[in-house]
């Protein structure tokens, strides 16, 4: 893997030599996230968000495993067991608030990570599979987040599950059967809660598996960089350790501070008050809203208000799934041979229009389905699809990029310079 000038793992301690010759696990770590992985020297702070996503996943898994020790996945006790965690379990409040806010923060860092990929063209060849595995992770996260929100069995849990699972009934012929299969019955009930708990426990480990595939596939071409040009020689890279481990530790510290502000001082800010009311199948909340990280897609779902050959509901469901699935095709929709928006003045503007559009969609998704929000979300949804499916394929073909630097080293140093302290160093 990686570049010919990458540092080689040379265990010095006899035990490490013994181990390396039998189970080269230290070698694997060294080559993956150690000094054996050369990284473009010019990557900026936006590249911290990959590692932060991994940290967020780890926090979710650790807090989730302990929460599961105290949670009762049964409609009779689920809500009470969550309150038991909050009141009677040692540091239960910390576990639950960290897990609930951890989900939001996981989405924040992953969304930023995705936007970075969009801006710098990290999805383009040769990293198409890295990007596509990332989209798989996003889908798995959405399923996990949705099912996790159902578990406390509050009003929003119950009615959110009812609304979202009902979407599948829009599918012709088999829709109703699919809903029954998802719910384990004809309405959201104990069978639903049980299977959602089971899957909510399973999927994070599936995510962890896909993360390993993603890192594996990333290490073939190595990381992209803000200039979007290929690594050409040793002067272009620095070893991951200690340069980027040091940078990532600093980034992790900043992340944990912001995260802690929410966990300890604003623990319910990102939640919905209705979820502190136990689920009641005969009382529907005035406004059913999903968690904030689904709002842009919820807005797209609700933007289809008119039957047009197909029923409006089916259009909404198709569009909501299409909005995410189209990301799989992004590497081929973008026809430009330049990756980074730094050198694409038109695409750069369009990226910021997309960010603004997503913000508008997010705001609309959190509002009740009334005017003017419905019409705004219809226009914003139109731009969303037009951006990825029409504008991007055309603009990427006709845009004239600015001249690219010859190499990363030249972009950073102004001219070529002798290779930095990057020569093979013996490992401990």
């Amino acid at each position: 893997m990686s570049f010919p000038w990458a540092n080689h793992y040379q265990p010095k301690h006899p035990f490490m030599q013994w181990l390396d010759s039998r189970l080269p696990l230290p070698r694997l770590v060294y080559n993956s996230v150690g000094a054996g992985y050369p990284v473009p020297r010019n990557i900026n702070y936006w590249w911290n968000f990959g590692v932060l996503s991994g940290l967020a996943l780890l926090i979710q898994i650790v807090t989730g495993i302990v929460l599961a020790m105290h949670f009762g996945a049964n409609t009779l006790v689920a809500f009470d067991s969550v309150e038991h965690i909050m009141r009677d379990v040692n540091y239960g409040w910390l576990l639950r608030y960290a897990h609930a806010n951890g989900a939001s923060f996981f989405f924040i860092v992953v969304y930023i990570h995705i936007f970075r990929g969009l801006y710098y063209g990290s999805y383009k060849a040769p990293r198409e599979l890295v990007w596509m595995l990332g989209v798989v992770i996003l889908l798995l996260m959405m399923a996990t987040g949705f099912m996790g929100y159902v578990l406390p069995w509050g009003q929003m849990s119950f009615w959110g599950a009812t609304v979202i699972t009902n979407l599948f009934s829009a599918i012709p012929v088999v829709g109703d059967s699919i809903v029954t299969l998802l719910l384990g019955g004809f309405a959201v009930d104990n069978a639903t809660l049980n299977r959602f708990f089971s899957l909510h426990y399973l999927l994070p480990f599936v995510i962890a598996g896909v993360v390993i595939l993603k890192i594996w596939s990333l290490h073939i071409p190595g990381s992209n960089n803000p200039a979007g040009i290929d690594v050409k020689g040793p002067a272009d890279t620095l070893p991951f350790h200690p340069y980027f481990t040091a940078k990532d530790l600093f980034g992790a510290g900043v992340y944990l501070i912001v995260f802690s502000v929410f966990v300890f001082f604003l623990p319910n800010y990102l939640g919905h008050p209705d979820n502190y009311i136990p689920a009641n199948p005969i009382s529907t909340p005035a406004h059913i809203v999903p968690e904030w990280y689904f709002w842009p897609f919820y807005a797209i779902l609700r933007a289809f208000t008119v039957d047009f050959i197909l029923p409006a509901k089916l259009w909404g469901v198709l569009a909501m799934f299409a909005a995410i699935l189209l990301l799989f095709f992004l590497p081929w929709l973008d026809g430009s041979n330049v990756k980074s928006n730094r050198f694409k003045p038109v695409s750069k503007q369009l990226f910021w229009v997309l960010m603004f559009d997503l913000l508008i969609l997010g705001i609309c998704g959190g509002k009740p389905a009334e005017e003017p929000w419905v019409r705004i979300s219809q226009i914003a949804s139109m731009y969303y699809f037009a951006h990825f499916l029409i504008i991007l394929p055309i603009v990427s073909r006709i845009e004239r990029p600015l001249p690219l630097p010859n190499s990363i080293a030249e972009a950073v140093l102004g001219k070529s310079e002798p290779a930095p302290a990057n020569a093979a160093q013996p490992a401990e």
Partner: protein
Amino acid sequence: MVRLFGIAIGAVFCVVLLFAALSPREATEVDPTLAFHEHPKKVHWSWDGPIGLGVFGGYDRVQLQRGFQVYKEVCSACHSLNRIAFRNLGEIGFSEAEVKAIAKNWTHEVPTINPDTGEAATRTAIPSDKIPLVYANEIAARAANNNALPPDLSLITKARPDGSNYVYSLLSGFADVPANFPADRRPEAPLHYNPYFHSLAIAMAPPLSAGQVTYAEGQPEATVDQMSQDVAAFLTWAAEPKLEARKRAGVGVIAFLLILTTLAYLSYRRVWAGIKH
């Protein structure tokens, strides 16, 4: 090929959305009572801390005890507080003996079974019991309250937006129906007008009147405003009893992280010293 497919699909979605955006809306009637809703009044709570950011500042134990008195003497006639055990009252400053006495003298007993016959029975409460329910079940509660259900108050301040201010505003906010209120929407008995309630018409009669509770000597006068604040503070504690532990831990954690992050930043700069990037 992918691009042509993409453009075609994008065009289809855009056409459908354009059609939807241009189709006329049904005329929606604006609810004429909308303008009568009021946002909860803002109170400076003890847990908002000295600068109001909520970083420091815990509960005022004396206020919580006054609030508990209001709950016990007024609210508990209809509203349960079933997620709180009597033993928890020790956390707001009651002694062990006081907690025992409160449990023993509580108006409702705890359901149990007769150990000899196995029949349903009740017994006096002990500190480890949750505060007993007022009504045996929802039907009994509705039957006694004109078909309205008095909610359990254990989580009420977290189950409503801006909950502490909401509870305070609701309790102190009963008013006469404004003169310009739409005649066909006026709350009819047994409902009462309250601009803070989601429907403006609440089944609960104004529960507090000045001097209804006799506070201990040296405590503030028991005005409706004072009692509403006190019981809202008590219910905030009931919904979030770990608030003080949480904030204390938060200050420590963030102080630790600030030091760690500073050191991490310095070592990052040290590692990168002289490296252009």
